[in-house]
């Protein structure tokens, strides 16, 4: 009797242990360790590198910390069991947050904030600097041409080329419309190179300028009246959007934000746009763009090509801006010459590229402050890249 009970208990125990063993085995298949691939590890290392760059060297920490951490989030391996954890699983929290990127409504909100924090005085006081912002857009179309040669479709080439505009929100906006499947790589590439502007631009600035040119002193900008500052966003919007209506979401919000700032009567709205709103969107944008780099979707040959083309487009944009200034100087009178070191600022990485002009300028003349002058082409670059995005969208969308 007692023996049979023991045997029965042993049988129960054995089946229970089997049950536990199977459960544990099943649980293991759900763990990140079980599902990890070399791709995940590579992406996690890239994410850690971004975080390192942001903290150690302060390269665009506002972008690289959220993107870097987003890469970590996006590359935690998991079993695709419909648990709604991944960014590409419809209905997951990350997927819902990612809608702002895929539907393209984060970038215009970022532009609203940029408009509300940008002072266009430098540009208004010396409007010829706008042309430098236009010249630097050669980076976009240079990369577009090369991408075509590398076998990308025209719409994909357009989305890749926009990296050369050095404008993350514009790159995301355009790629979400023209080539959604490449958006992750394009966004990460655009933001990475924006952060690496201090490394990419100076060698080309030195290479393309003579010592004499680097010492050119520009006339101090005149004081700009508040009326001029109010007129600027209104005329800017009407003119650019009548020319390229497809740039409306970005340009509309940029100039609207600027009017909030300059009108002087909507201080609270301007403060919100350039403060809490842009911060919130930057966090959401950064983390979701980072998380969109899931190794399974991201680590492809195309992504590597896009990274190469992105770097090239930055170089072309930088060189085009500097060379344009040098040519422009040929027709300018002596007192009105422009220091070609501000040519790099035509890419719209605001204000980093303008800061580079200042830093490199000070190396050669510690009393020649170029920051104020460089801000002109820098903000013109924002307008120029948004116009260029509108053109690409109009032609290829």
């Amino acid at each position, binding site marked *: 009797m007692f023996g049979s009970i023991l045997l029965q208990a042993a049988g129960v125990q054995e089946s229970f242990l089997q049950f536990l063993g199977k459960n544990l085995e099943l649980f293991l298949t759900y763990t990140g360790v079980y599902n990890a691939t070399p791709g995940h590890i590579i992406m996690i290392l890239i994410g850690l590198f971004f975080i390192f760059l942001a903290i150690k060297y302060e390269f665009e920490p506002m972008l690289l910390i959220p993107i870097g951490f987003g890469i970590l989030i996006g590359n935690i391996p998991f079993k695709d069991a419909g648990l709604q954890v991944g960014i590409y699983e419809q209905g997951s929290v990350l997927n819902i947050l990612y809608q702002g990127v895929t539907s393209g409504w984060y970038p215009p909100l970022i532009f609203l904030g940029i408009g509300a924090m940008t002072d266009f005085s430098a*540009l*208004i*006081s010396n*409007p*010829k600097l*706008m*042309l430098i*912002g*236009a*010249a630097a*857009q*050669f980076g*976009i*179309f*240079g990369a*577009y*041409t090369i991408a*075509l*040669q590398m076998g990308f*479709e*025209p*719409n994909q*080439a*357009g989305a890749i080329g926009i990296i050369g505009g050095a404008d993350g929100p514009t790159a995301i906006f355009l790629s979400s419309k023209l080539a959604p499947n490449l958006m992750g790589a394009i966004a990460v590439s655009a933001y990475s190179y924006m952060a690496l502007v201090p490394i990419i631009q100076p060698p080309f600035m030195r290479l393309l300028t003579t010592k004499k040119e680097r010492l050119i002193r520009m006339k101090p900008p*005149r004081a*700009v*009246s*508040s*009326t*001029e500052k109010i*007129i*600027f966003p209104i*005329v*800017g919007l009407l*003119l*650019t959007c009548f*020319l*390229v209506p497809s740039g409306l979401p970005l340009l509309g919000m940029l100039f609207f934000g600027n009017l909030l*700032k300059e009108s*002087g*009567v909507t*201080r609270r709205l*301007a*403060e919100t746009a350039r403060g809490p709103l842009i911060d919130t969107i930057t966090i959401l944008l950064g983390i979701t763009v980072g998380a969109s780099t899931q190794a399974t979707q991201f680590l492809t040959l195309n992504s590597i090509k896009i990274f190469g083309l992105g770097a090239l487009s930055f170089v072309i944009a930088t060189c085009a801006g500097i060379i344009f200034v040098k040519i422009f100087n040929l027709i300018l009178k002596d007192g009105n010459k422009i220091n070609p070191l501000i040519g790099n600022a035509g890419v719209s990485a605001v204000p980093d590229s303008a800061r580079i002009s200042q830093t490199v300028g000070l190396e050669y003349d510690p009393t020649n402050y170029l920051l104020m002058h460089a801000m002109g082409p820098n903000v*013109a670059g924002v*307008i*120029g890249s948004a*116009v*260029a995005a509108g*053109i*690409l969208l109009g*032609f*290829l*969308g």
Partner: protein
Amino acid sequence: MINKKIGVLLLFVVLFSFGANAQRAASMRINEVLVDNEDNFVDDYGKRHPWIELYNTSAGTVNIAGCYLTNDKNNPKKYPIPKGDVLTIIPPHQHTLFWADGEPNRGTFHVNFTLDPATDNYIALYDADGRTLIDEITIPAAQKADVSYGRVIDGQDEWAQLTKVTPSTNNLTLDSNEKIENFKENDSIGIGMTVTAMAVVFSGLFLLYIIFKQVGKFAIAASKRNAKKAAGTASGVSADAGEESGEIFAAIATALYEMSDDNHDVENTVLTIRKVARTYSPWSSKLYGLREVPRK
């Protein structure tokens, strides 16, 4: 003040009426009609009847509930499209199909009239007010069986007999992106795009440059004018006012002070000329976005 309020109110009314227009059925078009359905599309009841396809030409969703379909010029309200059916909400650039079987009790999309292949068939779509004509078409008589009469390209003006009958889908089937194919064929290197796009970018920013150069000139001229005006107001007192030394002002002030205080005892007094400096406050700082005090 009241006039101002009325003006603002009117402005809003006008703005909203423009906005509302985009949501109305004005962007719907009669897109394709099959008058003689012998061996073509069948309805949910498994029957073949003539059908009328409508197309939303806009990029916004349109609800056609409450609009009217008719085949009688004298009776625009012949078939009111029922309200409360979610299927009457037509997404952007999408189609919907109505069966002209004279059996409205079969559902929202079955109208109360039929089409006759032997005669001309007039079909019209009226807005919810029953007066505003949105679209109309007269289908010529003697249509061939199973050949529809429709717009060659969805929503566009040209009508033709369509041997490829396409109920609820595009009349012209696109198997590629025409724009992209065009670029691939004619601009494989990208030079055309580069030249065109850079020309547009340069033109845009060049126009801005021209405008703001002129605006700048006006602003400089205006500030000079204001400065002169300010100087002119001061010169109303004396042509060379402000050029006297501080000592003269001190002497005048002392004389005035002594005269006004003549009745008092003489006291020890120190008179100084001190520069008045406005103290900094965040409330008056431009940094905080407040408007400057008007200069008068």
